[in-house]
């Protein structure tokens, strides 16, 4: 198991692995997103109360769920980076932050667009909305902190600590609607037990969540590859990669 762990951590090995897997992830993401969004926006029946306005769920819930999963991934990568001093984990950490931040922005903006007609307001400071906003600031903090260092390794180490400290916010966002009362409704599908949504509406939603997750996986793999190339630009394996380029 440990040999596998160390082999995966080797930049050239991971780079080639990502090169092989990324296209498949991308295609699977496209298929699932097409299924989820066409199914959700066109074929699913309208909601009994919200009519067609409920369809924003097919963007909002996937983005919000993925924003939390990606933060967890980022914190795990941070822990590995701190404990094993693994360069690859540092790259995963800094590559995940902008993707996670984008998903958080999508979740917040789609939520606000839905909130105005349904609740009657764009924004309230209840526990769910506030903690999701804190999640965005944590992501932005990681991005900014990394940029503030000249040495990428020192920067990534500082980011790792911030990511680990901030992980306490993940269960707070998730359970904010259960621990406290809030204007935001409780979980519809991201909970144990029976989902509170009719099956023909739920299936495209699951597809959209899976598709968004895979799309983010694709984006992160590509960003990790870029980060690896940049950091290892002086090494033999990167120079070998460039031999095959046209005009050389």
């Amino acid at each position: 198991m440990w040999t596998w762990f160390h082999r995966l951590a080797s930049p050239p090995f991971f780079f080639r692995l990502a090169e092989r897997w990324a296209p498949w992830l991308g295609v699977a993401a496209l298929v699932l997103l097409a299924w989820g969004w066409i199914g959700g926006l066109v074929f699913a029946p309208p909601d009994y109360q919200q009519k067609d306005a409920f369809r924003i769920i097919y963007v909002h819930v996937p983005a919000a769920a993925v924003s939390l999963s990606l933060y967890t991934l980022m914190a795990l990568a941070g822990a590995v980076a701190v404990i094993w001093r693994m360069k690859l984990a540092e790259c995963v950490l800094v590559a995940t932050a902008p993707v996670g931040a984008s998903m958080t922005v999508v979740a917040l903006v789609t939520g606000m667009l839905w909130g105005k007609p349904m609740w009657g307001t764009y924004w309230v400071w209840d526990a769910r909305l506030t903690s999701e906003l804190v999640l965005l600031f944590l992501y932005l903090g990681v991005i900014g902190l990394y940029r503030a260092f000249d040495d990428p390794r020192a920067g990534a180490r500082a980011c790792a600590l911030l990511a680990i400290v901030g992980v306490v916010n993940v269960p707070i966002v998730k359970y904010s609607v259960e621990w406290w009362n809030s204007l935001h409704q409780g979980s519809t599908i991201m909970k144990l037990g029976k989902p509170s949504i009719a099956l023909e509406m739920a299936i495209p939603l699951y597809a959209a969540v899976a598709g968004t997750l895979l799309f983010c996986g694709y984006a992160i793999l590509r960003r990790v590859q870029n980060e690896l190339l940049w950091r290892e630009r002086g090494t033999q394996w990167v120079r070998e990669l460039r031999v095959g380029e046209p005009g050389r």
Partner: protein
Amino acid sequence: MTKRQQRMTAVAALVLGIGVAAALAFTAFRKNMMYFYTPTDLVAQAVPAGAKIRLGGLVVAGTLQRGEGLDVRFTVADCEQSVPVRYSGILPDLFREGQGIVATGRVGPDGVFMADEVLAKHDENYMPPELAEKLVAADGRHSCAEFSRPVMGRRPAIADRPSQS
């Protein structure tokens, strides 16, 4: 202990420490984390008198009365208590009898809640209209349990929710 094990312990201690600190802080500030008071809180006078607060509950069926212009009166209830509300202004599209709402305002001297903002609180249930029609005959659409205070992070399960009157 090797250096790596030391770092592993440090990271674990950090996560655990922050987790415990957060749990303690949020337990202490539990009341402040609540977005609204329930009619039960109001009736029990657990609410500072005359202060501007938010009140959450279901609009009781059959209590909505429209007055002149935009004036409305209705009663808001959780599973146990109810409070009369007066409001003048534009109501959100989702506002209707049986719907969950959160109103901002003050309790007047006569015990009527004078709201200056009313927001609809949608619940987590999504269904096509045909299914909703079947359900409304059986057991109402929205549950008052939505507005019962969560106990140790758990709301009453659907089975133990008292049925709506």
